[in-house]
């Protein structure tokens, strides 16, 4: 494939990530076209892109998820490629296929890989067959209580019973020992039947104190695959990430190298192309297991950019245009320690209730080692139709201590009034002694909240 950079890229997203992509387009001398709903007419992405096309009303289904409107916008604007950002159509393989048929380059992997890695059980099978560790589980439906008992004994307690057809926590039971098993098994089956009209269940090993660690991958069209290190995303509330950092304070260099090598191996095994993230669950003993792959740019990608100095969005675009990665693994230098706080329009004192409305004052922190990726501004009206992310504060320092004190300083400098935000909650997180010691798991926020902070 000949490398020829695009002249125009259409951005099929909104908010901070749309602005993030526009910035790299400008750095590369590429014209950006933003598509938007009627709710985002006054947004910064619309203001800063080279051109903007309104594709539909406020509701995402009729705008940001409206494939015909987005493809038509690409047609009328002569865009050569589409950047999907994250969320919306970023992992929709049907959209990827339609782009291809319309001679539009989708900035991401092709639909085959997306289907393979996007489906959890397909991904698990593929990774397992390739010889990489997955969370120990039954791989098939458990029919009887005897079967459940013998399997649970094999993998060891605690275990989690999950509904095959399930989701949203229904039909799920954590079982700590064999005496609890029978009751849990029967009630999970009953609940699964009621919720999904399907009572088939399977069993997985359950990790009470786990770490959520993911590895950033870059892979070009010429089988060059490198990693840009890991990110620790264990600070979560109800599976929503709040704060991420790199490097992980939990891993040692040996495990860090292993997990990154495994991630590269998985990407190679599925012939992955473009930027992607492989998520692992790491237990207390630092055993790690593949969880899933995200075939897109991630919200928390800037900490990796700050740590390595590599613009990931730029490489997404260049890889799609057929460029070869100019660096080898040993060329990647891991210099900084970087932390990101997600600033959401949510009220931490009121069960993180999302709130919308007009921002009155808005001032972003600044100074060395501070980056703020955000689309909000003074008097910006936060529309109620989309997610509550107002922006991301990313700080970096030469070590973790420097990064944390810089983060404290930057959080003190941010002014956002008119709305409740998660800023005060981030202050609590980073001044918690367990966080300062780098001693936290996915249980951290639950623990912090139970102390009534």
């Amino acid at each position: 494939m000949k490398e020829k950079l695009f002249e125009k890229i259409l951005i099929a997203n909104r908010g901070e990530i749309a602005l993030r992509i526009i910035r790299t387009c400008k750095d590369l001398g590429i014209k950006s076209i933003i598509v938007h709903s009627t709710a985002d007419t006054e947004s910064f992405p619309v203001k800063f892109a080279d051109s903007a096309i309104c594709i539909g009303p406020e509701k995402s289904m009729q705008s940001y998820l409206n494939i015909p409107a987005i493809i038509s916008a690409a047609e009328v604007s002569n865009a050569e490629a589409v950047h999907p950002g994250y969320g919306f159509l970023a992992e929709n393989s049907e959209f990827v296929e339609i782009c291809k048929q319309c001679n539009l380059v989708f900035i991401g992997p092709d639909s085959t890989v997306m289907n393979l890695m996007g489906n959890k059980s397909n991904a698990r099978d593929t990774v397992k067959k390739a010889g990489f560790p997955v969370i120990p589980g039954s791989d098939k439906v458990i029919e009887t209580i005897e079967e459940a008992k013998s399997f649970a004994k094999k993998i060891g307690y605690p275990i989690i019973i999950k509904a095959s057809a399930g989701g949203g926590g229904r039909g799920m039971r954590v079982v700590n020992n064999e005496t609890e098993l029978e009751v849990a098994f029967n009630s999970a089956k009953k609940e699964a039947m009621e919720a999904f009209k399907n009572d088939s269940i399977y069993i997985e090993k359950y990790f009470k104190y786990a770490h959520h660690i993911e590895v950033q991958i870059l892979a070009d069209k010429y089988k060059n695959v490198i990693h840009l290190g890991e990110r620790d995303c264990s600070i979560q509330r109800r599976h929503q990430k709040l704060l991420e950092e790199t490097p992980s304070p939990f891993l040692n260099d040996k495990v860090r190298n292993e997990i990154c090598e495994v991630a590269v191996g998985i990407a190679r095994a599925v012939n992955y192309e473009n930027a992607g993230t492989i998520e692992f669950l790491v237990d207390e003993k630092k055993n790690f297991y593949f969880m899933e792959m995200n075939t897109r740019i991630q919200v928390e990608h800037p900490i990796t950019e700050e740590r390595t100095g590599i613009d990931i969005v730029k490489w997404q675009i260049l890889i799609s245009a057929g460029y070869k990665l100019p660096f080898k693994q040993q060329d990647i230098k891991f210099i900084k320690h970087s932390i990101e706080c997600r600033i959401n329009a949510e009220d931490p004192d009121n069960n993180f209730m999302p709130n919308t409305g007009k921002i009155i004052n808005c001032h972003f922190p600044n100074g060395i080692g501070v980056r703020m990726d955000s689309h909000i501004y003074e008097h910006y009206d936060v529309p109620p139709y989309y997610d509550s992310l107002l922006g991301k504060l990313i700080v970096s320092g030469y070590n973790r201590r420097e990064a944390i004190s810089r983060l404290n300083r930057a959080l003190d400098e941010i002014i956002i009034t008119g709305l409740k935000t998660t800023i005060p909650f981030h202050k609590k997180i980073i001044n918690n002694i367990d966080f300062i010691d780098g001693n936290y798991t996915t249980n951290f926020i639950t623990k912090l909240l139970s102390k009534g902070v």
Partner: protein
Amino acid sequence: MINEKIKNTIRDLIWLADETKTNFVSYADNEIKIRFRKAFQNKEIIIPEIKETAEKTEKKEEVLSQPKKIIKSERVGFIYLISTKTKRYFVNEGAAIKEGDILAVINSMKIEYPIKSPYTGKIKRIFVDNAQPVEYGQTLFEIE
């Protein structure tokens, strides 16, 4: 002729006043002079002053107060004002139309979607050019 000009000027002034959120705008050249002031209760007062005596019969309240009948685009694509079959414009400014008449077609992903008028009346203004790209919500026609 001057009638048309006054109408267009008034419309532009209303737009300008709305856009700049001002209550008073005026326009003058060697033919006409128009002062436009927004009154309280959002009522508009328009005072056209015509220097040329010939056009003095101008009805002053003609374009006032009626809600505008605007037809907007409901999709993204290229708009065609000329029919591919007849090679003629579907409608021109000033043409009388009936509800359901086709005013234009929008070509979106190689499919043509006709734009039918929801009103019976007269085409007051066409805001787009033939074969230009249009976006969702873009103003296409005004009917009176």
